[in-house]
């Protein structure tokens, strides 16, 4: 696909306008398919379910899901307003993500910069890394109680580990020439760290943050599935127990929506901060 585009644009063209209009056409086509295909899926979904080709118990029609969503907006779910379910979930995930990012960032910078600290924590992180964070959930509930703290802590842990590993990798990947060049221009250790190593690690740090945020959403839902009486994960869990498939889909869509929204915000922020890489 990429190759073909490169080959096509490498072909001699008649006029500059041709090239420009071709670029525009390509952009429009990409925009078109990126909207049309999801739309087509939704239409197919609505049609197949309306025509009774699929058992509504397995896959309710879109309109029924929208109706259920509207009912939730007006009447709430399980004695709590939908907004509260959303709010509590986002609160958990954002607090955990924020604190986790700060901790992961600090640890990652230290581990990336000081080889002794890296050595000290090497085994610990290598052992922890492959363990799914959810394996710790009962342990966390045991330690921090069934309430908010254990949920926030498990999300925080998962995100912090990812941010830490990415930050460490970013610090270590800083090209030696840049560091040495800074020293030969008169920078001291602190200046080299602030002006060279930290900015060089930023792309990797932001990548870590984005991965962490999406993982955090996953852990959130799982943590809420297991315990609690509020939040989008709880909503999904509750709807499943009562075979309320429409409500289940509302929960799923809401998580997808807020996960996507958060990622878009983070991506925009990342592109703003790490603006020096081009495209």
């Amino acid at each position, binding site marked *: 696909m990429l190759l073909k585009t490169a080959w096509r644009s490498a072909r001699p063209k008649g006029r500059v306008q041709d090239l420009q209009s071709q670029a525009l056409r390509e952009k429009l086509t990409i925009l078109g398919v990126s909207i049309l295909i999801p739309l087509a899926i939704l239409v197919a979904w609505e049609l197949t379910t309306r025509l009774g080709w699929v058992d509504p118990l397995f896959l309710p029609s879109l309109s029924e899901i929208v109706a259920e969503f509207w009912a939730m907006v007006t009447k709430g779910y399980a004695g709590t307003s939908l907004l509260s379910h959303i709010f509590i979930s986002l609160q958990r995930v954002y607090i955990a993500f924020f604190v986790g990012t700060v901790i992961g960032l600090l640890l990652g910078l230290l581990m990336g910069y000081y080889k002794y600290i890296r050595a000290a924590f090497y085994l610990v992180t290598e052992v922890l890394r492959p363990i799914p964070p959810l394996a710790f959930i009962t342990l966390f509930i045991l330690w921090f109680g069934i309430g908010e703290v254990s949920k926030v802590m498990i999300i925080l842990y998962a995100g912090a580990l990812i941010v830490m590993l990415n930050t460490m990798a970013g610090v270590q990947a800083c090209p030696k*020439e840049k560091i040495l060049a*800074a020293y030969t221009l008169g920078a001291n250790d602190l200046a080299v760290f602030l002006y060279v190593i930290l900015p*060089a690690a930023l792309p990797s740090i932001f990548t870590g943050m984005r991965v962490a945020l999406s993982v955090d959403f996953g852990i959130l839902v799982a943590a809420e599935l297991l315990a609690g009486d509020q939040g989008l994960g709880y909503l999904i869990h509750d709807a499943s127990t009562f075979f309320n498939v429409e409500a289940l889909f509302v929960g799923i869509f809401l998580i997808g929506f807020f996960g996507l929204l958060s990622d878009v915000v983070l991506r925009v922020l990342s592109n703003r901060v790490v603006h020096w890489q081009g495209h």
Partner: protein
Amino acid sequence: MKNPPLQQSIDQQSSQAVVLDDPNLSEVVVTLDNVSFGYSYKKLILKDLNLTIRQGEILTLLGPSGCGKSTLLNLIAGFYKPLSGLITHGDEVIKAPANKRGVVFQGNALFDWMTVEQNIGFGFRFQKLPKTESRFRVRQIIDLVGLAGSEKKYPYQLSGGMRQRVAVARSMVVHPEVLLMDEPFAAVDVQTREGLQEELLKLHDQVSGAILFVTHSIEEAVFLSDRIIVLDRDCRGIFEEIKVHLPSPRWSAMNRISEEFNQYRTQLYLKLKELG
């Protein structure tokens, strides 16, 4: 790192013992006195090497790949310490990088998050120089190397040749007493490289520090240098030293096609052939 016993031979007296081998030549800036170095104790890269860099000269190191040219340059920069022997700059033993010894690498050394202007001005952040003065010098060198109009660009927006111009300007602008350049133009195309060489000679004329230049191109060595040192393999030290006299201005393109240039080139070619 544990200091090897040989390190103990380093003391103040020997740093005083700077001997000029030719009284007509200008003052020595950097002296290597019986320097040995290896990345491990098992295998030496440089052994008992003696070398001087004199004020304002352009000295080029030539030699087969892997003979230790970069290592030597890194030692002088202060990135490594010799296992034995002494490297002095002025009357000071070199122990760490300092801004009186600039370094230009082959590439990859620009700060991608800074504009051309910020990159070039970076060294002034660590000097107590009036803002107006540092700004003026940045401005001046940007014009000199033909980067005018690109001040606000970031490295990713520049061609390879432009990036090396920024790297050279960034090191030159703080007026180092010695500029160490490790194959700085090896990664750009031939036309660009010739332009860069000419600009380097013009800059050198203005800034007047010494330059230690590492290259594997004979033509580049002859065009740029006042003196060329050919390093031997397997830490056998200096194989040949040649002084280059070409008419001024040195940056004249005529120098590339002159008979003298060709003679130097042939001479060096045969010397390097001997090394195999």
